[in-house]
């Protein structure tokens, strides 16, 4: 058989098969549906506001907090240290290195639960592991961290630790969101310096 005819038949055959393949661009879910459902059902995808408050107080470098609200809402107030990636920008390739982290936990938050869960499902479906949601969003943050007060007569050590954690996070949140944008980065530098002095370390 003539080699040209042989290759022509092969190419035409492959072409026909490719024509019937479903569209599969780079941005489709990589996980299988049952895998994604199983992860979605698990409660392991959530962090409480108290846990996030602890990350903020400790400036934990193993987590990054992603604010998926609009830039305007972010400017008004945000969780200290968070990065603003509006939901509409989630598929922007520029953000992929930030969102697709193997070592660092990515925690999404919005004002409520809905948009953060959309974002979580999308990035997890795309195969970005290590993604989480702050349960309740900023509304829960305000309710629990910013406004909660202890009203009992006695306080257990565990409760005391919890309220101290909230109080510290509240203080940082208020301070940093009251500063102009130009001073926000310097706030953390100043905080680290003060801490190192208290710890007796080098400046």
């Amino acid at each position, binding site marked *: 058989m003539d080699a040209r005819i042989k290759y022509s038949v092969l190419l035409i055959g492959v072409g026909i098969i490719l024509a019937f393949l479903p569209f599969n661009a780079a941005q489709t879910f990589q996980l299988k549906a049952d895998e994604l459902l199983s992860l979605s059902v698990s409660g392991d995808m959530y962090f409480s506001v108290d846990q996030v408050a602890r990350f903020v107080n400790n400036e934990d470098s193993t987590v990054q907090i992603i604010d998926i609200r609009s830039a305007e809402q972010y400017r008004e107030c945000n969780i200290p240290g968070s990065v603003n990636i509006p939901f509409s920008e989630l598929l922007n390739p520029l953000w992929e290195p930030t969102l697709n982290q193997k070592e660092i936990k990515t925690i999404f938050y919005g004002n409520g639960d809905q948009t953060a869960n959309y974002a979580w499902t999308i990035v997890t479906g795309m195969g970005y592991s290590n993604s989480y949601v702050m349960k309740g969003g900023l509304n829960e943050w305000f309710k629990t961290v910013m406004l909660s007060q202890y009203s009992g007569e006695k306080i257990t050590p565990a409760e005391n630790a919890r309220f101290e954690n909230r109080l510290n996070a509240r203080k940082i949140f208020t301070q940093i969101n009251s*500063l102009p944008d130009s001073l926000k980065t310097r706030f953390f530098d100043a905080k680290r*310096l003060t801490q190192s002095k208290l710890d007796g370390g080098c400046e």
Partner: protein
Amino acid sequence: MNQLKNLKIVVLVLVVLLILVIVRNSNQHIFKQEVKTALEAVQNNSNLISPEQLLQLKSKWLVVNIGADNLPDSLRIENSIRLPFENLLDRANRKILEEVEGDLILYSSDEATASKAWIILNQLGFENIFILNLGDNQEVLKYKFQPDTTARLEQDSI
């Protein structure tokens, strides 16, 4: 004879490719939609439907309660079924969803569950699927941040 052998190899390659395509397409657990479609629908809120809009729909619809709680009595919706979220993609449940005529309306008292289910089903290729939105928009910040006007960085720390 040699020509026939060559032809057999070509046909064999094509058959193997065809089998791979059929196997891939028949796997119900593989997502086939572009993520962008889901993102756009969410941004436009075109995936949400209010009870009033639902009752005015002229096409057929079915409410699928995937949450832990019953549908609120105030809705007075009879055309509904209950499928637990964790079993949503079980073979029998999936068949039910696929056989729904008209619009598929997801409901959960926990909006996070409905959000995740909507994305999963949308990306599996289910069309005309909406989330029943009861109006209490949790995505609005209910609190107003009060800046501390006395806040400043310590001079010696800068």
